[in-house]
């Protein structure tokens, strides 16, 4: 655990202006950095001797619609040499909606960031191929994992041609006859 704290200390020393918060919960260390420093912090974590976080674990995002800086983008990386992991994240507002892409630092971030864009609508500056990845290309109902997106969707699904119109409950069904 001390091991991880030293990583946090190195980050705070190197980026005193940009590290906003350091939190520890159940043995996971997470560091919040300013949006403008995301790319530099990412590079530092990957390339600095003694840190060498060379393996990208996941990229996620969280939506807090009531807060001014609505979105949180979360990166988690692991160091094979030192066998430790760290999570670093940044906040951004909906009006801004764009952060630097880390796909130049870890190649795997390419797909993971595309998924974040697809699901939450956060744009990644400098991303080589920012398109929808899981939803269809022509999908235009918005971004499904935002908190204000209804669970049942916004009605596009009901327009599919192969769906029959819902039968009214009062009408007797012919299928019931033996």
């Amino acid at each position, binding site marked *: 655990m001390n091991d991880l704290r030293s990583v946090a200390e190195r980050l705070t020393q190197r980026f005193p202006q940009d590290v906003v918060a350091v939190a520890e*919960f*159940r043995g*996971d260390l*997470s560091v919040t950095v300013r949006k403008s420093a995301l790319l530099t912090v990412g590079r530092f974590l990957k390339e600095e001797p003694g840190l060498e976080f*060379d*393996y*990208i*674990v*996941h990229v*996620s995002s*969280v*939506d807090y619609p009531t807060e001014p800086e609505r979105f949180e983008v*979360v990166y*988690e990386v692991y160091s*094979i040499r030192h*066998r430790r*992991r760290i*999570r670093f994240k940044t906040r951004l507002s909906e009006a801004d909606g764009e952060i630097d892409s880390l796909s130049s630092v*870890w*190649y*795997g971030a*390419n*797909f*993971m960031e595309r*998924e974040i864009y697809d*699901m939450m609508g956060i744009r990644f500056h400098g991303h080589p191929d920012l398109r*929808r*990845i*899981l*939803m*269809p290309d022509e999908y235009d109902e918005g971004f*499904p*994992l935002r908190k204000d*997106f209804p*669970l049942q969707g916004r009605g596009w699904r009901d327009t599919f041609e192969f769906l029959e119109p819902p039968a009214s409950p009062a009408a007797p069904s012919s299928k019931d006859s033996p």
Partner: protein
Amino acid sequence: MSQTGPTTLPDRQPGSARRPDLPLLRTEELMLNMGPQHPATHGVLKMILDLEGERIVKATPVMGFLHRGVEKLAEHGTYHQFIPHTDRLDYVCAMYNNFAYVRAVEKLIDLKVPPRAEYLRTIVAETQRIVGHLFWLGTQALDIGAMTVFFYTFRDREILLDWFNELCGARLTTSWYRIGGVERDVTPELIAKLSKFIDEFQAKIGECNLLLEKNRIWLARTQGIAVVSAEDALSFGLSGPTLRGSGVDYDLRKYEPYAAYGDVEWNVPVGRNGDTYDRYWVRIEEMRESCKIIRQCLERLPDGPYLADAPTVVLPSKDKVFTTLESMIIQFKLFTQGFKTPAGEIYCGTEAHKGELGFYIVSDGSGRPYRLKIRSPSFIHLGAFDHMARGYMIADIITIFGTYDIVMGECDR
């Protein structure tokens, strides 16, 4: 028998069949659409291939045909209710998904699991790993053209699926793991059946291997195909046998031991050349290691409860629910409101047979996850597809699909 012992990775010249150096003919690039329905894509996956003659210039995977919005659904149900959804992620290996999920929730609420449950979990997880690798071996060999292996591996897989059926009443969608332990205990007959299977299985792996390890077609189509360097593999976030085939010793069971993996002796097989053959070798060796783990766990299986004593979290047993009022109320409350979790966020990765299956859970202190993100190895492996396919022949596409052991249910979520 000579094939039963652990084998060593055969020495050979490292190399790649990738030929980017060949002069381009520059006549006309052909764009070929492969899928979404293709028997070798193991689900519905479309691949747009830019071809120069028979050589792949660029491969663009198009996925999402199986997207069901599982992460969104998770935000609308309690923690217990999400367990059956995890079965449908990687639907050929549901046990491991259950395991990864319940471990993440237990980390969030800081719940200790009784030792017997830890051992049972390890045994079943390793059994599932064998099932997964057998499935992979059969289908990869079938895709490449060696049909017999498929019958052998599915014969053995069937025995284990029947064993699962006896254990929890389902062959594929198992939902056997519970937050705080497992759904039910094993019976002595089940233990006897599993030990018998493990005893016979070493020879059976040899049987499958005999058809492949010296098979010239198999070697020609796997050695030097889809080579990825250790550095690139890490940067892409590859994990599991796909990463270990490139020579990176990264196995969460070993380096962040959970369940009973810390108590038993086993090795992490690590490849060298980062090609399809080494990944095949890693998986074969992993099945042998799984047998070791299962045998040791069966020998040391401790007595005691198989569910944690935490009535605010763990579901009461069914016989109590139907006979006592309190248990009925607890059951009702746990399913309608769920249990409260401390606010916070955790990531918990589990070494499933495809790679690192992780759950990132953000909790706001309520009974439902505020955000649940699934780190699925299949999805992340597909991110490296273009990198690993460029420069190879179009016939190798099938091999490259297979070498990741992709299941689209997990990839598209």
